[in-house]
């Protein structure tokens, strides 16, 4: 029930640190937006500006088309989960949850109903009469999340709300949050470091770096078409391999070349990249685009690449192989292959690279070269 719009929003702390720079971003009514970025890139600051807890140095913040820069936080009807929880230390869990509702003069029965619902969902029912100091970190985080959720406001601002939970609980909460979002239809901004959360929860993700928005888009679009080497190197684990190389024109075809790797580009790409023919570029190879058999490496059958295995990380459903191109001395890359085959460190393997998936970036700007859109499935 709230569209949030940031127009050239900038935050400068104490006239020195520029925490957020010139952010233009529109979050649609009822949209689930994920903020993703390395530590210190300004995610919390952006969220706090939207909540009204930090002054906006310059630029405009609009909620439902109304300029909100100078509106008191108490009048914005937003709820926030703070990165540090910020629970009321002198109140029990139940009182923490009820506080915002009491201030809004909700009926006692309605308050009790909502608290029951949320505490069951978050598994904090047995702790309702305890003080925050008597809870573990993960329990406190769930209370913080609960305090925001019971409010059912126009928009939720969630600053890493699941960071302190164990893997299983985190997965449950992820689905619960998605369900809740669907049920309430409220706008949600979710800050996270977690790749899985970013990919699975967001309708769109917004990737930030050094206070600036680098790329905004649907998760799979961002994954398939990262705007620059930063996004490519940040999204997914292990991230894309980025290798310095060249584009060489030869026999009417364009080749991406780096030490121990020479790949003829599909025709459509050759045309798109013609401007960079003969120049230095950065070549991006996703670990998951290497396959054990040629038939799985796309329509073109893939490019055989011979690698020397340096590390094997068996994760269970898949295996991450660190391997060097061109013998031991060559550049090391990560590849992701199916579980089921044993690999030995030092052995040589041949994997098949799906050449249609190659990414090429400009050396100077680090921006991706515009390429024919790889169909989004």
């Amino acid at each position, binding site marked *: 029930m709230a569209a949030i719009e940031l127009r050239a929003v900038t935050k400068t702390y104490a006239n020195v640190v520029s925490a957020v720079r010139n952010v233009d971003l529109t979050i649609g009514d009822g949209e689930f937006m994920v903020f993703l970025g390395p530590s210190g890139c300004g995610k919390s600051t952006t969220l706090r500006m939207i*909540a*009204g*807890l930090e002054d906006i140095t310059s630029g405009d913040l609009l909620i439902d088309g109304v300029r909100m820069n100078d509106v*008191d*936080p*108490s*009048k*914005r*009807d*937003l*709820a*926030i989960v*703070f990165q*540090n*929880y*910020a*629970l*009321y*230390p*002198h109140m029990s869990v139940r009182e923490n949850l009820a*506080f*915002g509702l009491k*201030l*809004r003069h909700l009926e006692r029965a309605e308050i009790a109903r909502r608290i029951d619902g949320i505490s069951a969902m978050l598994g904090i029912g047995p702790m309702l009469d305890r003080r925050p100091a008597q809870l573990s970190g993960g329990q406190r985080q769930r209370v913080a999340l609960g*305090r925001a959720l019971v*409010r059912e406001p126009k928009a939720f601002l969630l600053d890493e709300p699941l960071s302190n939970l164990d893997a299983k609980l985190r997965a449950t909460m992820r689905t619960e949050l998605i369900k809740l979002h669907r049920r309430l239809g409220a706008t949600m901004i979710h800050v996270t470091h977690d790749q899985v959360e970013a990919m699975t929860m967001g309708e769109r993700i917004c990737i930030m770096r050094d206070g600036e928005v680098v790329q905004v888009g649907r998760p799979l679009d961002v994954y398939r078409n990262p705007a620059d080497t930063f996004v490519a190197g940040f999204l997914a684990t292990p991230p894309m391999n980025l290798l310095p190389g060249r584009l060489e024109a030869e026999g009417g075809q364009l080749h991406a070349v780096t030490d121990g790797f020479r790949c003829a580009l599909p025709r459509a790409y050759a045309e798109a990249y013609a401007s960079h023919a003969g120049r230095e570029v950065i070549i991006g190879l996703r670990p998951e685009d290497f396959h054990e058999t040629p038939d799985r490496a796309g329509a073109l059958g893939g490019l055989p690449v011979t690698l020397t295995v340096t590390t094997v990380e068996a994760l269970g459903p898949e295996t991450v192989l660190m391997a060097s191109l061109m013998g031991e001395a060559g550049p090391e890359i990560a590849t992701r292959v199916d579980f089921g085959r044993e690999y030995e460190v030092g052995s040589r393997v041949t994997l098949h690279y799906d050449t249609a998936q190659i990414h090429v970036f400009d050396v100077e700007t680090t921006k991706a070269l515009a390429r024919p859109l790889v169909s989004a499935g």
Partner: protein
Amino acid sequence: MTTSVVNNAPNRIHVHDRRFGWLLTMPGLALLLLVIAFPVLWALFTSLFEYTLINPGFHTYVGAGNYAKALGDPEFLHSIRVTAMFVVAVVVLEFALGFLIALMLNDTERGKDLYYAILLCPLLMNPVVVGLIWRMFLHPSLGIVNYLLGRIGIPPVNWLGDVDVAFWTIVMVDIWHQVSFMIVLLLAGLAALPREPYEAARVDGASSLQCFWHITLPLMRPVIVVTLLIRMIFAVKTYDLVYIMTRGGPGVATDFISYFIYRSAFVGLDLGEASAMSGILLVIVLAMTAYLHRSMRAIS
């Protein structure tokens, strides 16, 4: 083997430390006993005898007689009532004013240290000096207060000589002198409050008044209790101000316990009864201190 030796060493030093610590505090403790415990014990002992300055000496043992006499003395009971009223008045008014100023200072960004320094000035002054200064200021015909009031057309007030006014004059001067004490303690408490709950409350929809009521007050509770208790204990013992400004008068309007005890001993010359009254005052203050002690332990 080596490890066990290393492990034992700290224990031995620990025992030594404790004994050595006692040894070091001995001279101080002895001095304290001499200057504090001895007079107290002497007074308590005296309170059991009929001991007057005309006929000094422990000749006639009267047991609880002096205590019974004191508690049956309407003047003493009056002084207890006046003191109680004074304590309630100054503590309530100083707390209200002090808390208000502390809250404002806590929100002040610029010039905080300057305000703080100015506010501390009265606190650094000796009560006798405070009494003398205000006695001059409040002089019915020569004082600056009545002069200034006259300039705006208010007739002169007999600040210290009017039965209905003198009590409140003492209250006023005490506030001037002691309110900074409240401010300092409460400000320290406010500065130590966590910032996060306020942010959460504002997003939850609380106004500043609601923040004060639901966050500041409950979180400040321990500090408030301790501040009030300390201030009360000191207010019960107020002596210097009345001695300098009113001598308990006019009549017995400002006849606080401490001053009344002094009068009984050195004007009435009945040291036995005065000692008994001191004993009663001691019990009151000790009870309050014990409560204070418990409250402070509850904080930590």
